[in-house]
């Protein structure tokens, strides 16, 4: 699929809507035509989205209309109650935190939040969290631990915000402390990558008992653009880089690095945000339910061992 193909699909969809309007007018019977075009649209969609390349998925994960974390939260957790501030240096709108009720229990929520408009993105920095965000996250992790609230993380960031201010406030240290804290929690933790899972800024709040991904989300050690620049020395080799990095949900499930791929509607989550939010909510609830049955100590031990065991290598042959 290419973006121009997607535009074709959008145009066709708009045409059908137009015909429906016309159909309502007296003396017009366009039912047959509408049905024919709908059939055509459906088959085009199936063709286009059946064979998504990894780079296509990167573009879907970053799609301007893709539901953001708060779009999902609004649908899944209507009584979400936001908490602000790291109690130290400020509040970071790129990483929202709060409490909510899910299936009759209180949960703590952490989520990267991208903006929808230019103004929103000025504030939310395209979901690139700063040290203030990670320190707020850590504060809320500890709050969750104290009161036994399960932790739900929604991941959607191109990466942590780089720059002088971030370095001055030790962004690397803030990420490291989040990781260490996530390994120490005894409450159940579930993370879902809903869009972009970009590098250290993503994993900081994603090292959970269960890691889920929406079907067209990506999770990667470096952006395809970054990998193309660093390894291929050619910014145009992004398709190749995306493919090589193994960053899609199906691929990461196959590699055993994530637990579940949550299906998206044909064309991506933005086509049917409500359906996607339902599927996400169901998956989160199901995993939390399973985890809640475990003994807290055993659960933490399982989590630590899960991460302890990640990595593939082989034993050196004798004498080599």
């Amino acid at each position, binding site marked *: 699929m290419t973006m121009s193909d997607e535009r074709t699909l959008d145009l066709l969809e708009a045409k059908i809507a137009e015909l429906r309007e016309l159909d309502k007018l007296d003396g017009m019977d366009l039912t047959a035509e509408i049905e024919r075009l709908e059939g055509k649209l459906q088959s085009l969609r199936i063709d286009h989205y059946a064979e998504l390349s990894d780079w296509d998925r990167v573009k879907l994960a970053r799609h301007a209309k893709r539901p953001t974390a708060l779009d999902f939260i609004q649908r899944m957790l209507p009584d979400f109650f936001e908490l602000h501030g790291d109690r130290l240096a400020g509040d970071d709108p790129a990483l929202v935190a709060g409490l909510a009720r899910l299936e009759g229990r209180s949960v703590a929520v952490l989520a990267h939040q991208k903006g929808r408009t230019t103004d929103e993105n000025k504030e939310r920095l395209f979901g690139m969290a700063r040290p203030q965000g990670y320190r707020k996250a850590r504060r809320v992790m500890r709050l969750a631990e104290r009161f036994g609230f399960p932790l739900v993380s929604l991941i959607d960031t191109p990466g*942590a*915000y*780089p*720059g*002088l201010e*971030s*370095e*001055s*406030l*030790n*962004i*690397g*240290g803030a*990420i*490291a*402390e989040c*990781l*260490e804290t*996530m*390994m*120490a929690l005894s409450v159940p933790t579930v993370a879902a990558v809903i869009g972009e899972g970009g*590098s*250290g800024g993503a*994993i*900081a709040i994603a*090292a959970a008992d269960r890691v889920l991904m929406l079907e067209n989300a990506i*999770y*990667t*050690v*470096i952006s395809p653009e*970054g*990998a193309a*620049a*660093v*390894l*291929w*020395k050619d910014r145009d080799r992004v398709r190749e*880089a995306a493919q*090589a*990095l*193994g*960053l899609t949900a199906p691929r*990461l499930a196959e*590699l055993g*690095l994530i637990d579940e791929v949550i299906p998206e509607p044909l064309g991506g989550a933005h086509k049917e945000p409500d359906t996607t939010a339902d599927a996400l909510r169901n998956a989160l609830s199901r995993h939390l339910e399973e985890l809640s049955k475990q003994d807290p100590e055993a659960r933490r031990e399982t*989590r*630590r061992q899960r*991460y*302890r065991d*990640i*990595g*593939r*290598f*082989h*034993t*050196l042959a004798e004498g080599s």
Partner: protein
Amino acid sequence: MPIFREREYLRVNLGEQRDESLWMQCKACGELVFRRRVRENNNICPSCGEYFFLTATERLESLIDAHSFEDISRPIVADDPLGFHDTKPYAQRITEAQEKTGLPGAIIIATARIAEVPVIMGVMDFRFIGGSMGAVMGEQICYGMEEAVRRRRPFILVTSSGGARIQEGMFSLLQMAKTSSVRSRLADERLPFVSVMTYPTTGGVQASIASLGDIIVAEKGAVIGFAGRRVIRSTIAEELPGNYQTDSFALEHGLIDRVAARESLRDELASILRFFHDDHE
């Protein structure tokens, strides 16, 4: 790693390691210096004080009591789980790095003594694919910490790494969580972990295990930080001060406890270890 290629960014010159001639030219001051004198001087230029690069073994020997170390690294080498191929196949990169360094991976784990105190050490080697952290490095660090628990010894990690190893994709990123996981066991056991950051300690290594030391010491000339100048230029195009991510920047902003010159790092570690050693035991 290309991130550190810019001239103004270089604090330590990666001199010609293979040149076995008697003399070498210091890239900083241009002086021709006697190679043996450089080596005897901890790879510091006798003329201008510029730090030359240390291999993992040289670094170890510079920090510990003479003849006290034993390499206990796990005998493992990297897989190529993604079949990664950029300008050359990953498998070939590993073989080349092994031939160049004589090491199976980018880190060695050793038992040693520092001022008579037995410790477990992990020492990275930047020559091995930029000291990048893939599955082998993550495993070795974890193994080192677990040995520290088993033998009830302090753990010292000397970092020299550009960050996560891109060629192992998410397996590399997850080493950040892996090392943090075992680090928490070390904390549960109340065994000290001293992190020694040398040139460079950046990216996924700085944003995980290296920043989790109970005490963090940087070697003079270290570059310490998360996102390098290149990343910042390509994402937000911000003006950066000359001391950005230097040892003094890190000290000033509270990222680390102390900065030590190369020749005094050993004494620095000895002083730290003393506080964790109970004379009445």
